[in-house]
């Protein structure tokens, strides 16, 4: 893309970093919270934290969809696979720990677990093998949910059902503000989720919580600009919703995608691993689409799985209370090769990102 270079322009980035140092507070530390694994990847990969003043702390909130899926839902996916159905899931889901094993470990025990790039792959597999039952483990935020809805509305093959585990970002952001000792000063909102939901769902943050909120893209200049915009608001004691990612995010979002989601899913309360129950944060199939529900078709319903293993601090990493390096297991008992907690599994997990970008040695 012709413009991509501009958002990676080192000269522009350097100037923004200089401006960040100018507007950053001189004494008090401000905390800017993002809620997107891809933002964490950009920040870590480009060494953005090392460019910031000591008074600017950028923390990662619950932005990794694989990390926040409760163990009970992973257990359900494993159970349908062990019962004989083919479990299809995204690549970074196969290693996420359930209460006692991951889908990959279930595969070792003989379950048929297959990695797909898209729900489309699951549909094609089910069409190719009509005599087998297939289940798609539908994990992801608002970015992913429309594709699940689209395939269901189209009329999936009769031998394909869904374990819907989609979750919504704004309720999790609101929950973050209720964590008293976090003291967040500004939000960087996730750009790709925002391409779908638009800007309106974030209005509550500046209006009700006086929280500067910047929707940002995923090039280094995007993230630096978002940090600068947030710091300017903090300095000027203003609270507004700003869109840095105008090339992809419109006020109304993606209307088609939102309509599809509304048609197929209802919003319910749900558990998030490491966080607990968040009201109105989870998508579930509406009555008219229950024939696609794998819970019904395969008679699985598990509650109360083991979300956090002994010693694992993922529940604190997920809400930005600690950095991965503060977990006693990080890069000792818990590594990308042998993950203990979910944050070390998903490509968007904060621990995994810190491990592969060697942030811990900086």
């Amino acid at each position, binding site marked *: *893309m*012709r*413009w*991509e270079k*501009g*958002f990676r*322009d080192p000269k*522009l980035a350097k*100037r*923004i970093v200089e*401006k960040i140092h*100018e507007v950053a507070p001189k004494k008090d530390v401000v905390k800017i919270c993002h809620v*997107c*694994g*891809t933002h964490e990847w950009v920040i870590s990969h480009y060494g953005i934290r090392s460019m910031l003043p000591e008074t600017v702390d950028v923390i990662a909130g619950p*932005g*990794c*969809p*694989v990390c926040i899926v409760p163990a009970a839902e992973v257990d359900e996916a494993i159970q349908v696979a062990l019962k004989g159905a083919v479990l299809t899931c*995204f690549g*970074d889901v196969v290693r996420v720990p359930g209460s006692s094993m991951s889908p990959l470990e279930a595969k070792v025990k003989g379950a048929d677990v297959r990695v797909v*790039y*898209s*729900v*489309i*792959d699951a549909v094609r597999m089910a069409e190719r093998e009509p005599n087998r039952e297939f289940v798609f483990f539908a*994990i*992801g*935020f608002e*970015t*992913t949910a*429309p*594709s699940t809805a*689209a395939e269901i509305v189209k009329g999936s093959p009769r031998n394909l059902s869904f374990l819907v585990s989609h979750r919504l970002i704004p309720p999790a952001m609101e929950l973050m503000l209720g964590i008293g000792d976090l003291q967040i000063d500004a939000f960087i909102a*996730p750009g*790709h*989720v925002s*391409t*779908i939901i638009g800007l309106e769902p974030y209005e509550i943050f500046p209006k009700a919580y006086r929280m500067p909120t910047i929707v940002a893209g995923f090039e280094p*200049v995007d993230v630096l*600009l978002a940090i600068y915009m947030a710091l300017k608001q903090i300095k000027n004691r203003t609270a507004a919703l700003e869109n*840095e990612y*105008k*090339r*992809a*995010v419109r006020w109304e979002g*993606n209307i*088609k*995608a939102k309509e*599809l989601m509304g048609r197929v899913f209802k919003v319910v309360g749900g558990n998030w691993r490491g966080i607990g129950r968040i009201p109105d944060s989870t998508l579930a199939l509406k009555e008219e689409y229950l024939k696609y529900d794998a819970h019904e078709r395969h008679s699985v319903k598990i509650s109360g799985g083991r979300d956090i293993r002994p010693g694992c601090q993922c529940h604190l990493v997920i809400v930005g209370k600690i950095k991965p390096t503060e977990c006693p297991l990080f890069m000792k008992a818990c590594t990308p090769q042998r993950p203990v907690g979910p944050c070390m599994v*998903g*490509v*968007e997990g904060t621990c995994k990102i810190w491990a592969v970008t060697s942030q811990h040695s900086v």
Partner: protein
Amino acid sequence: MCLAIPARVIEVNGDLAKADFGGVVREVNISLVDAKVGDYILVHAGYAIQVLDEKEANETLELWREILALEEEQSER
């Protein structure tokens, strides 16, 4: 999981399009967007989720260059 990759639409056939991901061509479902040949789209898990606005991208960069230059001038005074 929330990663979306930009690609250029090179062929449209109903709900499906061929998209060029910087040299790699893949089939993408474009039923969630109104995309035509030549458009840049954001692709997530096989689906285009949004059409990118090239004009907006260039304007954003230009605007920020101007703002930063102006702020630099003001801080030098």
